């Protein structure tokens, strides 16, 4: 049993079509300690979901392809194992909650059956009655009465559906749970409920979690470690405290600045100027340089090294790389 539940080294994912090559994830590395929650934060199109799908080895292929990288799940390299072995890992050791609960459930199967499916898959030899009991327990756990076992997804509200999706994901007590924007499609009033419940269950089951979101409020509430993604790279990585209190990367600063402050009177919200670059046509040098207020000539060419500004706090920006060398 290794100390880190997950270690990712230099992961590269590309979508190749006849017309273009989309660089979705460009060499990201991170690790996650047991029972911790990692927040993967970034704008739409930053490569968060692609990263998650790569961890499940569910990148649709073609056109997607994992070009490079090593993924160690509980010390086991899941990039080298067969699809059959991977299937035994999915749902049991690593499972996923999807963004849109409206479409994540099969509309023509009762929710109970959909929970039972994963239970039976990973507990060969378990009797049907026992699997049913386990599925009912999961429903109760996410706050749905077991009587609704035989009901269909269309009989549930959005928040309830997401609870069912969570029940499916946690049914086999996975060691790692990937939650891909689990609250984005829900009403604000339901968001907090669902998030709260996820945190409680995660602590109960001792699961580690990767929480993908673009909501910094959610990050502050639920994460221990945060990785800020931009254009398929992790531009800043550190503990929650490091990221919130001592953020360094201009992009992270821009992200936090764009949250309106209730105490000051502002007329317009602050935004980061410009748009996320097209991932099939990324800029040279630092990917953020066209939008960066501190951009220098040096930023426009060459690779940007990762600097460790304090223990465990990594920043991918030239400002700090130089400072790091000086010190």
């Amino acid at each position, binding site marked *: 049993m290794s100390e880190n539940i997950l270690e990712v080294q230099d992961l590269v994912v590309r979508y190749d079509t006849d017309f273009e090559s989309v660089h979705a994830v460009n060499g990201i590395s991170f690790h996650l300690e047991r029972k911790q929650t990692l927040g993967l934060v970034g704008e739409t199109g930053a490569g968060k979901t692609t990263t998650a799908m790569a961890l499940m080895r569910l990148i649709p292929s073609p056109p997607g392809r994992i070009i490079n990288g090593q993924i160690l799940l509980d010390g086991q390299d899941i990039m080298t194992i067969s699809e059959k072995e991977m299937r035994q890992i999915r*749902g049991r050791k690593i499972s996923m909650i999807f963004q849109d609960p409206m479409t*994540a459930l*099969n509309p023509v199967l009762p929710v109970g059956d959909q929970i039972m499916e994963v239970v039976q898959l990973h507990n060969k030899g378990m009797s049907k009655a026992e699997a049913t009991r386990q599925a009912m327990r999961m429903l109760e756990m996410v706050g749905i009465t077991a009587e609704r076992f035989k009901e269909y997804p269309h009989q549930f509200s959005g928040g309830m559906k997401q609870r069912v999706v969570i029940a499916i994901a946690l049914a086999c007590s996975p060691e790692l749970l990937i939650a891909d924007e689990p609250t984005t499609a829900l009403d604000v009033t339901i968001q907090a409920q669902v998030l709260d419940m996820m945190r409680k269950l995660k602590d109960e089951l001792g699961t580690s979690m990767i929480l993908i979101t673009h909501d910094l409020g959610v990050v502050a509430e639920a994460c221990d470690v945060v990785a800020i993604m931009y254009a398929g790279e992790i531009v800043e990585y550190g503990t929650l405290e490091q990221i919130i209190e001592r953020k360094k990367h201009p992009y992270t600063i821009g992200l936090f600045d764009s949250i309106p402050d209730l105490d000051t009177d502002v007329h317009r919200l602050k935004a980061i100027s410009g748009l996320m670059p097209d991932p099939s046509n990324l800029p040279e040098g630092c990917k953020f340089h066209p939008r960066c207020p501190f951009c220098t000539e040096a930023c426009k060419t060459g690779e940007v090294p990762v600097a460790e500004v304090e223990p465990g706090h990594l920043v991918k920006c030239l400002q700090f790389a130089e400072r790091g060398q000086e010190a």
Partner: protein
Amino acid sequence: MLKYVIKRIISMIPVLLGVIVIVFTLMYVSPGDPAALKLGTEATPEAIAQLRAEMGLDRPYLVQLGDYILGVITRFDLGESYRTGAEVSAEIVGRIGITLKLAFISMAVGSVLGIALGILSAVKQYSFIDKIMTVFALFGISTPSFWLALMLILAFSVNLGWLPASGSYGLRYWILPCATLGYQAAGIIMRMTRSSMLESIRQDFVTTARAKGQTEGKIIVRHVLRKALIPIITAIGNQFCYLLGGAVLVESVFSLPGLGKYLVDGISNLDFPAVTSSVLVIALISVVVMLVLDILYSFVDPRIKATYQGDALFKARKKALKEGGEVAHDSKQ
């Protein structure tokens, strides 16, 4: 649900009445005189007029129509054949079996083949197999059945001598007609299966199933096909109804004494009761098949069942609103 079925059965009545009126009228206005046809070219005008009076053809159109409808409704009497003088109902009962058998076997062959190949084609989209299947299906859809029937006879009966070309005396006699109709049905069902599968294979719940660690084969059958079934069973039902009426050519080519052949013979002999009654029976079977389809839908897709029930719920509430002014809130919600 029961209410819905009863409602649907009641709504069949105007459909069937409409069918009677249209077919009866078409036959009435069609050129030619059944009495003259029956007596042959040598008959005197007096003899023809006498026969017309006997057959009731000299009465006004509305009286004839009303008489026929009344006979059907009150006595299940489909009239007497002008040609043979026998009861039409007895003649139809004797022939419907052959047509139904032909339709059932053909549809069974077509459905199994069509769904299996459709799944294969969807799973291997754009592959070589998919393209071969597409050609196979398009050939089935676009080939006229009589031509295909003749070609099969040429190949398997005339040249190879493996199978009989006509008649209906045993299983061997059914192979070629059912292959002809089954292949056509398979083409349409295969295309429908393919497109419906492709639509549901890209949906998020498939990714959910993969994330559970489910195998691809089980995902296809349990999740994708189940979701894709509605358009497929619709196509099967439509094909079945089409076969009932459309088997005419194949029945003629293979000399199968079925309902289709009876209908065609009836038309060429101006046998009004035979034609109207045959069409009525085909229409009746078709509306029953459609009803069975609609009931099947609700078993395949629970959301459709909910709309059937929801409709009744909605009406009950509207009624309650009208009567009492206020509706008690459903405690379940």
